[in-house]
């Protein structure tokens, strides 16, 4: 695609904080002065069902707010992998939460980030931060946005709710980044131009 645009899908179980991932990434992009469109799947969603959110980031005008074919995917559970893997653009990138995905991606053209998000969150002491662990790994690998913008977005989102949550989420973010560094890159993800 001849476009300075990144189209991301985030998918998992309802309750895994899918919408929050989209929010953190979208807000960080706003902080960096980029154009952003965020969407959340809506309808008869329920806790335990599948949920997905999409974020389009561009330094240019964004025309189509929908993400039919993402070039980056953050996948937190098996049913979401099965559903969205075929839709990813050729030579795209996929992050999988290996704690909850036994059968990995089948496609060989995709760059991969593997992170034990749920396991790491467990070690940190709160399973609910698994989503932010995934964000940490994703940003560290792709350099899509700067880690400091992501940190700022996390602070903005949580400081109103409960300042204690800022600390544990920042910890989760850095733990995800750490694992991403440790496992190395299967292939550079590349920043958006």
């Amino acid at each position, binding site marked *: 695609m001849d476009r300075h645009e990144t189209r991301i899908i985030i998918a998992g179980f309802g309750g895994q904080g899918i919408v929050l991932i989209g929010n953190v990434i979208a807000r960080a992009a706003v902080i960096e002065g980029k154009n952003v469109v*965020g969407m959340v799947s809506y309808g008869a969603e329920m806790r335990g069902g599948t949920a997905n959110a999409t974020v389009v980031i561009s330094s240019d005008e964004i025309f189509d*707010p929908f993400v039919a074919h993402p070039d980056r995917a953050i996948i937190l559970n098996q049913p979401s992998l099965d559903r969205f893997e075929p839709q990813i653009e050729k030579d795209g990138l996929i992050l999988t939460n290996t704690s909850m995905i036994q059968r990995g991606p089948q496609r060989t053209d995709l760059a991969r980030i593997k992170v034990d998000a749920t396991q790491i969150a467990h070690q940190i002491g709160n399973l609910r931060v698994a989503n932010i662990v995934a964000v940490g790994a994703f940003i560290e690998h792709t350099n899509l946005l700067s880690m400091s913008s992501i940190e700022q977005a996390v602070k903005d989102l949580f400081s109103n709710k409960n300042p204690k949550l800022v600390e544990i989420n920042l910890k989760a973010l850095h733990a995800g980044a750490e694992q991403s560094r440790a496992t190395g890159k299967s292939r550079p993800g590349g920043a958006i131009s």
Partner: protein
Amino acid sequence: MGEKILLKGNEVMCEAAVQAGCRFFAGYPITPQNEVPEYMSKRMPQVGGIFVQAESELAAINMVFGASLSGARCMTSSSSPGISLKQEGISYIAAAELPCLIANIQRGGPGLGNIRASQADYFQAVKGGGHGDYRVIVLAPASVQEIYTLTMNAFDWADYYRNPVMILGDGISGQMAEPVEILPYEPIVDLPAKDYILDGCAGRKPRVVKTLVLRPTDGLVTHNEHLQGKYKRIEAELSLCEEYETADAEIVIAAYGITARIAKGAARLARKKGIAVGLIRPITLWPFPSDAFAAVAKTAGQILTVEMSHGQFVEDVKLAVNGGCPVRFLGKGGGWYPTEDTILEKIESMAAASATIAKGEL
């Protein structure tokens, strides 16, 4: 430029309403506009306004009728099936010449339909969905920032013309979040004094806004003529339209709202492939910017109308173009959504067909 914050279209519409001084909201839940009552339920009490989750859509529109009659800037919102239920009230409000804002965040129809985005309520919005000869000013924003601006303008135009105004949105523009700059409200017209409201008649003559007793007996004829005079004035003063690279375009896409935005992307892709494509986007659907369409038809080889319905907006395009150039169509209902590639494909087939004709091969 000020700081930008990330908000959904539905939320931005509410914040714009609050900034513009809207202090009464009544509504009833329906997807995909539920962020509107949710936001208003939180925001209205913070600014000393009133939020009512009504028992039905009918109750909500009639509460707005009453609120407007008391002089308040007021608003209701719903999605397609709920807007159908409000039509009786909208006709009454138009008859009484009361200002208010009605938002329709369209979903798939007909009937209960589905909760995906749609543009199939075009006829209902611009041709008068209720009974009688009346018009509602209809606005079609194409971005979250434009939802913000047009919502504020809507309250001004409603007061200025003493007429209901509708924001005709859709499930996508309502649900999508974009960075938006929350600008302070400034009236864009000189707002007339509300010398019609019912606020107690001690020391002045009573006012009648609506009555069964029409005197003289041809009072309704006179009233209709008065309304038509106002509608003519609105048509002359308030047609808004955006054009993008239409000057040299061999094909001009006609689209409104979210569809126009995607069409603009398709136009850009087409230009990269060497096909001169432009876009004409009405911002007001009523009054329809007919003159701009007629002018485009003089220079364009063909017009392609794209809408998320089986062909409603296209009828107004054809009326305005009046045979000036061929008008083609791309559209479906029920939650169908045009991608840039779908539109581009249609453009390429149109360009190929006209090239064949030009070569005399047909």
